[in-house]
């Protein structure tokens, strides 16, 4: 069905909105918004299709959350952005918010934020004020799970929050130093969920926690199916199972199964896409061989096919970060990537072919596709 799409784009230097016609052929641009602000995530509330939230900071200033309740026409700053309690026993202060997640459909106004250093915050008023989720942030093992120096070059992060669409109390976190954590009481208690996920940078390659879980996605039609792009491979877990399967073993050996992100199909539980990057030797984190490509599985990870039509066939060295690969829900499904080189590419045919729709932007941190309101 034809559907106009909006792409909410967060970059290292501000935010943009790209709007398509109903055929997703012609695109117009609005922006820059908040030029110079580091925008790690820029999302819309699916419960009202009107509220927009942006996780922002600058090189100088502390972090904040920017909010619009009119689809981006006007913006205001959160009255109380995520901040650890004064006197936090671990002395933490929020460096930046990394991930913004709308709460369960039955909880309008509830939002979750993952921050750096790793911490979880909740808002009950549409993102205006935020409270520390003490069940995680003061968990007895929090310093084991999130050691102060345990993170990415931009700092340790709680990089993702996922809410089970069937149960507001059931949530997952993806983190850079404790892998996946799960709660069934909406954050009061947590446990690691990392069986069989490799950690090739620790003496014990299969620890209880310690994994760097780059991205986790629930299959939209089957929330019991979890896809994971980890620092050390591509995995799948079907709940109530506890043991992840490394489905990336089936990727071509010269490409490998390292990457930042994974995107499930909106309607097919067996289909997902990854964007491989070079994780050999000194970890260039570029497209392997300078030949950018997405890889698609249509059988739950038993096999993968390369999808590179339209991309440079040589000397293409960009990659795609955690929040910068997404899908819409149209049929055929559209795919969108934002690159470290400031380009946006799209496919209107489920990855069979790709074309560039924007260039010359700053380094792109996030791309979120929503249906035009």
């Amino acid at each position, binding site marked *: 069905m034809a559907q106009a799409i909006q792409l909410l784009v967060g970059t290292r230097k501000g935010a943009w909105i790209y709007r398509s016609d109903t055929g997703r052929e012609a695109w117009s641009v609005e922006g820059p918004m908040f030029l110079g602000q580091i925008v790690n995530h820029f999302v819309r509330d699916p419960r009202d299709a009107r509220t927009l939230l942006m996780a922002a900071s*600058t*090189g*100088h*200033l*502390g972090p*904040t959350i920017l909010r619009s309740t009119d689809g981006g026409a006007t913006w205001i*700053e*959160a*009255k109380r*952005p995520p*901040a*650890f*309690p*004064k*006197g*936090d026993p671990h*002395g*933490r*202060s*929020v460096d930046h918010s990394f991930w913004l997640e709308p709460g369960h459909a039955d909880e309008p106004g509830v939002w979750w934020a993952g921050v750096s250093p790793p911490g979880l915050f909740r808002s009950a008023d549409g993102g205006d004020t935020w409270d520390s989720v003490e069940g995680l942030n003061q968990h007895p093992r929090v310093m084991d799970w999130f050691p102060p120096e345990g993170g990415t070059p931009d700092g340790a992060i709680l990089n993702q929050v996922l809410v089970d669409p069937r149960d507001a109390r059931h949530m997952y976190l993806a983190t850079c130093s404790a892998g996946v954590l799960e709660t069934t009481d909406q954050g009061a208690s947590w446990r690691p969920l990392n069986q069989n996920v490799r950690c090739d940078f620790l003496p014990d390659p299969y620890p209880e926690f310690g994994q760097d879980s780059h991205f986790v996605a629930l299959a939209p039609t089957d929330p019991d199916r979890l896809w994971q792009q980890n620092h050390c491979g591509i995995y799948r877990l079907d709940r109530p199972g506890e043991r992840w399967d490394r489905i990336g073993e089936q990727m071509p050996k010269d490409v490998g199964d390292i990457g930042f992100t994974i995107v499930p199909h909106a309607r097919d539980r067996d289909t997902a896409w990854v964007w491989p990057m070079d994780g050999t030797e000194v970890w260039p984190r570029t497209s392997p061989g300078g030949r950018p490509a997405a890889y698609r599985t249509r059988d739950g990870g038993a096999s993968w096919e390369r999808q590179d039509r339209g991309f440079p066939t040589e000397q293409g060295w960009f990659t795609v970060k955690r929040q910068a690969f997404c899908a819409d829900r149209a049929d055929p499904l559209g795919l969108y990537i934002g690159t470290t080189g400031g380009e946006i590419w799209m496919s209107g045919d489920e990855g069979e072919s790709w074309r560039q729709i924007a260039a010359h932007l700053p380094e792109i941190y996030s791309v979120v596709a929503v249906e035009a309101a």
Partner: protein
Amino acid sequence: MIRVSIPSQLIAYTDGATRVEAEGATVGGVLDDLDRRYPGLKFRVIDEQDRIRRHMRIFLGQDEARRVDAPVRDGGELLIFGALSGG
């Protein structure tokens, strides 16, 4: 009364003003007063543990203040700068 110099990074909070006045006996007190009039300004300069943020610098006249409890002299000047923070 303290005279306060506002850096470019913060003029969105002060309606473009680069020079404002505030009350307070300490650096933190002055920032609290500014925050009452320009909500949100303080948190972007001082973190939740009352530390001056890494890439912000505050001077009392010619002397750098490194703590929020540094005393401020009535009639003095407090200057806020955005320091070097990368490319």
